[in-house]
Structure formats: structure tokens, C-alpha cells
């Protein structure tokens, strides 16, 4: 017998069933913190982003966002811009930024655009794709993450449903604050492997 057959048979011998349960939906309770909408959702998201040790910035439009980035990025170095259409097509030079399109292990600052955000947890949500390299969110030292206010979702269930609606991209990333490790003496240090600094810039569209 193959290992597969053996394992399945051993499970069946010990009482597990190889047919699905009669009623397939489990009633999973949704806690109150995962049901906030509109202004309440935005307020919770903003508070939790700050709690996650990320910086929270509101920008009325793309140009304001680019100015915020220019003010914080290391000077005289290009910035890696994720090839996502919405941000790759912006007038970076006009904002005084030398843009290098694509994820880069050599540049300290990088920009990418989140597909959504989650009020329940203060997380950003990124889907991988043709123009959306996963590494854009992990390689930089300073990660500037743009997100549209209108895309903020109440909770985790909504975010996972959105991923399913997009046919499960090969990678889905929930990011909640800058990278950290508590492995030395249980004391938090930022910037273990991913970004040391995360700047969340909310585009205040309505």
C-alpha cells in the first residue's frame, strides 16, 4: 500500500470518515471588533496601525502621498516602486524621486500598494500578481505601503472572502507592522528580516 492509502486507512480505522459532513458550513461567531464599518472602521484601523509600531499617514491625493514618501526616504538614492499600474504610472520625478520600477534587494526604500486593509487587526492585504511582486513588501528597509481608504474591510472573514473572490492569488500577504523579533531575551527588536520601518499611507478617497 502507498503511504497515502496507509495513512487514510489508519485514520478510517480510528473512526475518521472519508465523506464530508452532512451540513458543511460551520457557524463561526464573528466578534464585535470584526464588524466595524465606515468611520468606526477607519478609526480602528488608524489606531491599530500605530499600535503595530508602523507610522500612519493620511494623504488627500497621490501627490501628497509622494511628497510624504520623499520627505522620509533616504536622499540621493532611487526608490524601488512596485510595478503595480496605479503607482508605477505616477509622476515620481515630478515629486523629486528617482523611481526604479520593480522589487530590489539593493535599495533601502520601497513602495507598494495594498489591495485592501483590515480594521479588525490593523493589517494591510496584498495579492501577488503579474505587476505585484511579493518581495516588494519584504526586501526594503523602509516600506511605504499605500492603501485606499475605500478598501478598508471590517474583519478577517471579509479579507479571506476577497482573496477567494480573486481566485486565490498564489500568494496573499497580511502585514501588520514592521518586521520584528523577540528571540533575544524576549525583548522586541525591529527589522529582523523584513522592513525595519513601515509607513502606511492612506489615500483618503471617498
Amino acid at each position, binding site marked *: 500500500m502507498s503511504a497515502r492509502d496507509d*495513512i487514510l486507512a489508519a485514520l478510517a480505522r480510528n473512526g475518521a470518515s472519508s*465523506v464530508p459532513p452532512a451540513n458543511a458550513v460551520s457557524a463561526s461567531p464573528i466578534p464585535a471588533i470584526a464588524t466595524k464599518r465606515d468611520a468606526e472602521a477607519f478609526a480602528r484601523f488608524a489606531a491599530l496601525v500605530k499600535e503595530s509600531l508602523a507610522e500612519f499617514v493620511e494623504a488627500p491625493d497621490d501627490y501628497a502621498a509622494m511628497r510624504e514618501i520623499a520627505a522620509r526616504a533616504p536622499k540621493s538614492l532611487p526608490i524601488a516602486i512596485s510595478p503595480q499600474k496605479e503607482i508605477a504610472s505616477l509622476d515620481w520625478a515630478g515629486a523629486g524621486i528617482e523611481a526604479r520600477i520593480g*522589487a530590489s534587494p539593493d535599495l533601502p526604500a520601497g513602495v507598494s500598494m495594498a489591495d485592501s486593509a483590515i480594521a479588525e487587526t490593523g493589517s494591510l492585504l496584498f495579492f501577488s500578481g503579474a505587476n505585484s511582486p511579493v518581495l516588494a513588501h519584504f526586501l526594503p528597509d523602509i516600506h511605504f505601503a499605500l492603501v485606499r481608504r475605500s478598501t478598508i474591510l471590517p474583519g478577517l472573514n471579509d479579507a479571506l472572502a476577497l482573496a477567494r473572490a480573486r481566485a486565490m492569488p498564489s500568494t496573499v500577504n497580511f502585514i501588520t507592522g514592521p518586521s520584528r523579533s523577540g*528571540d533575544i531575551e524576549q525583548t522586541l527588536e525591529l*527589522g529582523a528580516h523584513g522592513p525595519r520601518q513601515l509607513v502606511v499611507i492612506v489615500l483618503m478617497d471617498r
Partner: protein
Amino acid sequence: MSAHKNPRQFPANTREALANAPLQKTLERIKLGFQLFRMAAMQELPELESLRTALAAAKDRALAHLPHYLEQFEKNVIANGGQVHWARSASEAIAIVSRIAREAGVKRIVKSKSMLTEEIGLNAPLIRDGFEVVETDLGEYIIQLRDEPPSHIIAPAFHLSRADVTQSFRAAHTHLDPKRDIDDRKSLVREARQVLREKFLAADLGITGANALIAETGTVCLVTNEGNADLSMTHPRVHVAIAGIEKILPAMDDLALQLRLLGRSASGQRMTVYTSLRSGPRKAGDADGPEAFHVVLVDNGRSQLMRAETREVLRCIRCAACLNHCPVYASVGGHAYGVTYPGPIGAAFQPAISGIAATHHLPSASSFCGRCESVCPAKIPLTRIMRHWRERGFGKGVAETPNAIALKLFAFAARHPRLFRAAMKLARPFWHLPFGPMAKWRKHRNAPPAPAGSFVARVQQRRKP
């Protein structure tokens, strides 16, 4: 003093741990860290009890229909372009990973933290087969340099001090300036980041564990705070996720439930910094991601735990709350147990993997205070399962400790009332003797003073009209 201990020597290991002053100081951090963080994180969740009940129910449903969900998961991984492998044992799992690496022409492997790969001992055989294998979770990296096992399931280097880490980095990173200053945590983290970044970028294969397998989509979920799982599973051209068969969740809503409880129970975080879902290798046109994706499903004793008496232990989501709230773990630390999974979850789970003969001390290493199960997000009846293993230990005659012998003598005497009464009379003067077997027993226990007259004598006294 080696960190690799034998579970058969648990009593001796604990004495050594209790006498280890630096370790005792480290262990104090459990109360001030993990316990307080968890408590604070649960404040905003008045629904905690119903969520725990729901997680237990979701896991129970997954387990009751595990063959179905495993097959559904496999079908969906394949539909996503990935491959699924099945391993009955540790050695089969190791052989599968080694074969995948060989066939893909891999030389360098980076690994993200995974307790399952500790359980099956994956690294040593892969290194013997000629692969470079580098742990990338900071804690795991440190203990890999020191050739030590993890001492905590979510904080593997819990037992070490900063000075230990400085010393290990100096010994290992000989290519760096020997006069550099790495005495503070910041520079240690920076140095690890720099050394390991090069390893990520050079690796051909990334190995991760799995926090959950979602059947309805064929998805593997991984959580870290450092981002090492993401670099391991995105940059190398092959990603192998290795998972116990009990990690299955039927649906995405079950994952939402597990995530709500996992971070809070573990480290008091609402959400770990990085939560990532892998559904297949890179799709045509994707900007990055691995070209090949494999899942290795490992049994290694789990199918035996499916029996009714122990099934609940397979609900475990490895949050470590039970360790963090265990007075025994807090007194002796992880290494004294001498097994992969220390603390209450180890006492309930490890006998199935390592056999009760080798591990019979572990289910006895409990005050049965029940704090573990009161914090367990999956409501696993840990003390009941420990009792099950205790009974198995006694039944198999492997636990021939003084306790076992004393219990047998008691059982015999209890069935023979005359003998019992005579023995009680004889024993009374010995109860408080400063030497002999009772004195030894009293060393770590409070013995109340013996009342005047035996129980039987007092009952008889009261019955008199």
C-alpha cells in the same frame, strides 16, 4: 552540560534545571511577558469563550472527516499547480524532502521555523546528503549555531542570554571584523539580518512548516513576526511546506477563527506581523514566487492519536499558551523534558511519537492544576489526556517508580481491611520521622500533622450511641 536531554532522565534533568541560576532568571520572564501579554490581548474579546468553543468544534469537524478533507486539500493543491506527498514516518518525510531537493538540483536550503521539522529531525540528514541547510528564524538560527534543540515551541532560544548570542555570532561569523561591537541586541539583530539576507538570496529551496492547511482552496497558511517564512517561500525557486496531517481546516472562515486566537494566545498579538497564504507556485505571468511548490503531509504517530481517548490533542494549533501558563514548565524550562514538545502539549502529544516507555515521566510532570486547559484556545482536555497516558504507563509496567510500587501496595492493602488497619497503626509513628521514605516524600510537599486516631477509629467513635 549538553542541552540534548533524555526524557527517561526527567527527574535528574529537573534537578539540574532548578540548580541552574541563569536559566531560573530567564524563566522569570514567562510571567512578565507571555502571560501578561495574553491577558491584555483577550481584553477586547468578550466573545473569547464562544470563539474557543467554535475553534474546538471546527477542529473536531476537520478531524472527524480528516480523510475527506485531506483528499480535498490534495486535489486543490494539484489544481493550483502544486504537488502533494504523503509520509507515514519521520524517515519517509526526510527521504521525500531530500529527493525533491536532489531532483531539483538544489544546493542551498533556507528554512523557516517549523516544530514538525524538529520533531522528525530533518536538518542533520539533509546536511549529510550534501545540502547546506540554514535556519532563518533568529531564535532557530542561534540554536542551530549552538547545536541545541529549541526550549520553547514559539521562542526556541528562550533559555539563552544576549551574551550567549554574542559569543555564538563571534564563533560563527568569522568573515566579519573580529573587533566589531555586537554586545547589544540591536547590533545582534542587524548582523543576523545581514548574514541571513545573503542566505535567502542565494538559496534554491525554501522549507517552511504550516500553521494551517485549508482544504477548500488547497492553501497553506504561515505566520511569523520576522518575515523569514516569506523570504523562504518567495525567493528560492522551490518551496516545500511540511505539515502534520492534523493541520487541516475545512474552510477560510475556520482560518479566520484560528488566526483570531493564535496570535493572542501565543504572544498577545492580535495578529502576527506576517500572515501569508500560499496557494500554488507562481502563476503564469506572476512577478515572483517559486516555480515549484510541494506539500509533504506527515503522519508520524498522528493517525494513532485519532482514537477517541486522545483525539482532542490533534486540535492543537501550537500556540504555546499551555507552556506559558504551566508551573512545571516555568520551573524547569523546555530542555529538561528531553523531547521536541515540552510542557503540557508535549505530555499529551509526545508519547504518541516517542512511545510511552521513553516518555512516561512527562504526563506525570504536572500538578494537575489545569491552567493549561483553561487557556488552551482549542479547549483540549490536556489533564484528561495526560491521565490517559499515565494509565497507559502503569498498564504497560513501564512506570516502575517508587510511586507505582507504593500505589500497588496501597491497592493491595485497601482490598484487605485487616491488613490495612494493621498497616495504618504501624505506619503512624513513621509519618513525621525526619528520615526514611516519608521524609523523602515530604521534601517537596507539605504533610499535614496526623490527626489523633485513625479515620476508621474516628468513624467508629462517632457511631457509638
